[in-house]
């Protein structure tokens, strides 16, 4: 069981300290956003499972040589088992609880936002049924869900050309159609549970950038990349009220450069290697259970 704990600690360190900065600093996620998302999801899942399994291993170690043996002799549980078990259980409950609460909060915020949008905006049928808000500042966003909304402000309508508007709408529709909100949700919950962990913050920021890249690529299938890049510039540099300035600005610059000078997609070899890596990362907690059976 000592070997199992050692393996789990090693995996946990790799997943939480080595992997996140390596992936965030690499150039390939911009060439294959889907694989980037896959790896982040694998890392998030593995991080949670490894931590829980490590606590379970510590709890069961005094009771037997494998996890199963330990579970059989739970009646001999001592202080170590009780403390580690309780911490593990609390952590599990907290993770699930935060996921539930943040999902519920998101849904509620979305519902009230949609109610207000429907109340005060006018649908523009020429622009794919987008809801238009009567406000001079340019904004464009979408409200995901079963009854999604595309929202534009009057400011965005007057700032962007028709081609640019259609490219922006295609980008937002890609978010809605592929339910990118569901991809982001677990990372929002993870961020709410462990706001101080650098790995969690990196993962959250990277995932939200990657879904933007995906939506950009979708929009670029039917629209000129330059139109989308110009729209990014126009909306990004429109005068924003203080406080909002600079938030996510780096991402906008990165996206515009990528649109204007698109990198080649990953070839099959490296892409398969990354899929394999994601599978290994996601399966790493199994190592912890396997090691005591083999040793």
């Amino acid at each position, binding site marked *: 069981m000592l070997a199992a704990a050692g393996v789990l600690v090693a995996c946990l360190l790799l997943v939480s300290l080595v992997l996140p900065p390596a992936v965030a600093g690499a150039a390939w996620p911009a060439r294959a956003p889907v694989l980037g998302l896959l790896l982040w999801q694998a890392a998030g899942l593995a991080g949670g499972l490894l931590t829980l399994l490590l606590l379970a291993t510590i709890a069961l170690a005094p009771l037997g040589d494998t996890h199963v043996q330990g579970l059989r002799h739970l009646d001999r549980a001592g202080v170590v088992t009780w403390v580690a078990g309780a911490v593990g259980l609390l952590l599990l409950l907290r993770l699930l609880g935060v996921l539930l609460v943040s999902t519920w909060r998101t849904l509620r915020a979305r519902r009230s936002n949609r109610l207000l949008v429907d109340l005060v905006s006018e649908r523009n049928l020429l622009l794919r049924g987008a809801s238009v808000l009567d406000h001079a500042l340019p904004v464009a966003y979408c409200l995901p869900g079963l009854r999604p909304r595309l929202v534009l402000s009057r400011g965005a309508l007057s700032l962007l050309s028709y081609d640019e508007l259609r490219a922006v709408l295609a980008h937002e529709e890609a*978010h809605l159609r592929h339910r990118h909100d569901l991809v982001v949700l677990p990372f929002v919950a993870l961020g709410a549970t462990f706001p101080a962990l650098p790995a969690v913050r990196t993962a959250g920021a990277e995932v939200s950038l990657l879904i933007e890249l995906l939506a950009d690529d979708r929009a670029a299938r039917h629209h000129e990349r330059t139109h989308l890049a110009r729209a*990014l510039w126009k909306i990004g540099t429109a005068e924003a009220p203080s406080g*909002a300035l*600079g938030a*996510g*600005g780096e991402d*906008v*610059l990165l996206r*515009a450069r990528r649109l*204007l000078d698109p990198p080649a997609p990953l070839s099959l070899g490296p892409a398969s290697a990354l899929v394999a890596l994601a599978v290994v990362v996601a399966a790493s907690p199994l190592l912890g259970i396997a090691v005591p059976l083999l040793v």
Partner: protein
Amino acid sequence: METLWNAPAPLTGRQVADALDSHDLAYTTVLTVLSRLKKKGLLSRDATARAHTYAAVASREDHVAVLMQQALGHADDRQAALQHFARSVTPAEADALRRALDGIT
């Protein structure tokens, strides 16, 4: 909502129904809609009068302002509720963007 926004004073259900005359709505339907909007926090009801009167809690402009604040990222709990097209960039980033675009056109 439009009717109540345009009205100078709170209206009763009957008055709202009369104002919406052209829409051919039943009085009971109007009452149902009014109480639903109240439940959603968009209307206030004054129950002191014999016939309850309704008034809009906030103007159309107020609601737009709230939505714009959320869209511009002033409210933090909304991060997952909506997905922006683009956020504001710093002046240095704007320069870099401008140069990138100039290279193309």
